[in-house]
C-alpha cells in the first residue's frame, strides 16, 4: 500500500481541548532558565502525543512575552502540528500585552459553546509562567482575563519563577491558582511535568475515562511549588 497516499481527517464533532502556554522570555530568564523552558515545551509536546486521546484533541496556543509579546503559534494549533518554539530571553516583561493576546485569541480562536451552533471546545486550560515583574500596564488586561475566568469558561494557573520573584507582586498579578517556585532547572522540569500531567488529566476527564464521578481537579502540584493566595481587589 506504500505507493498510495492515505489522507484522513478527524471525525466531525470532535471537541478540541485548548491549552495556552504564556511563557516569560524576558531578560531575567536568560541562561539556564530559558533553556529549561524550551526543553519543557518539547517534553510537554512529546508526552501529550503519547496519549491517543490527548494527541487527537489537545490544541495549543503559545504566547511569548519578552521585550514584546507575540503569539508563537497561529492561533490554536493541534499538538501534532506544534513545533516547540526556539526561545531567546531578552527585554522587559510585557505581561499585560500577553494577557491582551490571550484575550484576543480566546475571542477569535476558541470555539465557544453556543446552543444550536456547531460544537465548541472543552474549557481551555491556561498556564502562565513569569518572573513576576511585569513592566507594562497589566492591571486592565488582567481584569479582563479574571472576568472570563469567573464566567467559568477558563482554568488558569499562574506560576512565578526565579530568584527575583516578588511574592507581593505575584499575589497582585495572579490569575487562577497561583504558585511560586525557584529558578532551578529541576523546578522547571517539575513544572512542565505537572503541566503535562494536568493536561492528560483534563483529557481523561473530558473523555470520560476517569468516570463521571472523578473530581474535576488538577493533579497536586509538585514539591517546590508554593501556593500563593490570590489578591482580589
Amino acid at each position, binding site marked *: 500500500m506504500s505507493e498510495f497516499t*492515505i489522507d484522513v481527517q478527524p471525525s466531525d464533532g470532535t*471537541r478540541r481541548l485548548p491549552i495556552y502556554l504564556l511563557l516569560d522570555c524576558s531578560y531575567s530568564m536568560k541562561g539556564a532558565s530559558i533553556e529549561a523552558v524550551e526543553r519543557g515545551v518539547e517534553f510537554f509536546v512529546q508526552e501529550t502525543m503519547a496519549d*491517543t486521546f490527548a494527541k487527537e484533541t489537545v490544541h495549543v496556543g503559545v504566547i511569548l512575552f519578552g521585550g514584546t509579546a507575540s503569539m508563537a503559534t497561529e492561533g490554536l494549533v493541534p499538538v501534532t502540528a506544534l513545533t516547540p518554539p526556539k526561545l531567546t530571553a531578552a527585554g522587559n516583561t510585557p505581561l499585560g500585552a500577553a494577557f491582551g493576546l490571550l484575550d484576543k485569541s480566546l475571542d477569535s480562536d476558541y470555539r465557544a459553546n453556543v446552543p444550536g451552533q456547531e460544537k465548541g471546545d472543552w474549557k481551555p486550560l491556561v498556564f502562565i509562567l513569569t518572573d513576576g515583574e511585569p513592566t507594562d500596564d497589566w492591571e486592565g488586561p488582567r481584569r479582563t482575563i479574571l472576568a472570563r475566568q469567573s464566567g467559568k469558561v477558563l482554568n488558569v494557573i499562574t506560576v512565578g519563577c526565579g530568584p527575583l520573584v516578588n511574592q507581593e507582586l505575584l499575589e497582585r498579578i495572579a490569575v487562577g491558582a497561583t504558585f511560586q517556585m525557584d529558578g532551578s532547572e529541576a523546578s522547571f522540569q517539575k513544572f512542565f511535568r505537572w503541566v503535562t500531567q494536568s493536561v492528560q488529566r483534563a483529557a481523561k476527564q473530558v473523555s470520560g475515562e476517569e468516570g463521571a464521578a472523578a473530581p474535576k481537579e488538577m493533579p497536586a502540584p509538585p514539591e517546590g511549588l508554593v501556593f500563593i493566595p490570590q489578591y482580589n481587589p
Partner: protein
Amino acid sequence: MPTVTLKEVSAGLPTTITVVGQPRVGGEGEVYFSNDERYAVKVYHPQVKGGPSTEDREKSLSYVRSLFQRLPEDQAEFILPPLALVDRFDGQPRVGFVMRRVPSEYQEVFEFVFTPMQAAQQFREGRTWADYLRVSRCMASCIDVLNRKGCTHSDIQYHNFLVHLKTGRAVMLEADGVVVRGFLRAKVDGFPGFMAPEILASGAGPSEKTDRHSLAVLLLHTLLFRNVMNPLIEYDTDVDQSEKIGWGEQAVFSEHPSDRRNRPSKVGMPLFRRGALSYHTLGPRLEALTDRALIEGLRAPSNRPSAQEWVKALACALDEVYGCGRCRQHFIYPHWQLPPERRACPFCGERVAVPRPVVMDLLEEKQRGAFQVSGRRLVLGEGFKVFADILDPRRMPPVSRQSEPVAAQCAWMARSNRYVLVNQSDGVWTSWMADGSRGPRVGRGESVPLQPGMKLLCGDGSRLLRVVEAPE
C-alpha cells in the same frame, strides 16, 4: 515477591501463585502478574464507604466464577472470568481474584479506532479493514457469551476490549463487574458516548437493553472509525450539560434518513480522501441491524438487536469482502449497488475494475429438495477459497479459518472470460443451468464455469450455491 494464596480454585490452577513487579493501580484495586506470566491477579482496595461489602464482593465473584467455569473453549477465549478467589495476599486476608493474563500484544480497541488517524496508521502497517471486521465479530461474541449466561456488562466501550488486530481476536475486560441479577448492581452507568440515551435522559439503570445500544455504538465505531451518535451541535452553554443532552434527550444517529443534525459533512466520501465512512458500505444485513439499534431502537429499546444477531451478521460479512485494486484496502463488495459500474472502493473511491467478482446466494434446504435463501452472500474473485464451513448448513464461519478445509477455489479464465469454481473436496457436485437443465457433475479437481442463474450443490446436505452475478 508476594505470594497469593487462593481459594475456590478451578481445575488446573495451582493453590498459590507468586506475583512480580509493580502493580497497575486502578480505581478499584491493583492488578499484578504472576511470575510465570500466565495469570493476572486483581486485588481490590479495602472496602470503601458506599462501595460493595467484602462479603457481597466475594459472593458475586464466586458466583461469576461458577457461572463461567465450564465454558467451551470457543467461548472461553472471549472473556476473563475469575479462575480462583484470593484468600491471602502476602499473608494478609484480601479480596480479589485470579484471571488469565492476556498477551501483551493485545491493546485496547480504542487505540485503533478513536479517529481515522489511528486506523490509517494500522493500514500503513499492513492491517486491513477485514481485520477490523474480525475484531468486531469477536467483540460481539464476548457480549454474546455473557448474555447466554444471563449477565450484562453495563460498561461496553472501547477501553474495555483488548484486541489483536493481526489475528482479529478480542477479549472483554471487567468480567468481575458483570451484572448478574440479584447480585451486585452495576459499578457504573456506562461511558460517555456509549451510554444508551435513556440512561442520560431519564436516569434508567443499565440493563441488557442498554448494553445492546452500547454494543451497536462500539461495533460501528470499530468499523467506521467514528462514533455514529456523536452530536455535532451544542445544546447548552455549559459543555457538560450540552454533552448530556446531545447523547441523551436529543440523541440522533449520524445517518438518520431525515434528521441530519449529526450528519458528518463528508460522510460517504472516500475515507482516504478526507471523507468519512458511511454505514451503507456495510451491506444490507449490517445496515438493517444498525437501523434497528440506532434508528428504530434508539428510543424503543426492545427493537435493538442482540449480540448474537451481530455475531452472525459480522461473521457472514467476511465472506462478502473484496480487495481494492488501487489502494489494496478490503471492503464489503457493494453487490447491492446498481448498476454494477458504479461500485467503488469506500476507502479510495476507485471503481471496482472488471472482471468484477462473482456474487452468489447461499441457500439452505428447509424441506427435502426445497431450498430457501438464507440471506447470506458469497463474493468470489480470482483465487478466493470456499471453505468447508460455508457449505455446511449447521455451521457459522469460525473465528479463524486457518485449519478449515478448502472445499473449492475460484479462478479467472482469461481466454473464456469466465470465472470457474474448482472442486477441491472429495464430494461430487451437482449443477443446474439458469434454465433449470442439468449441468455437469463436478468431481475432485474438475471445474465448472460460473454463469448467472446457475446452481451448485456441493455434496449431500450441503448449502446450495446460486450464482447471482458473474461476467457473461
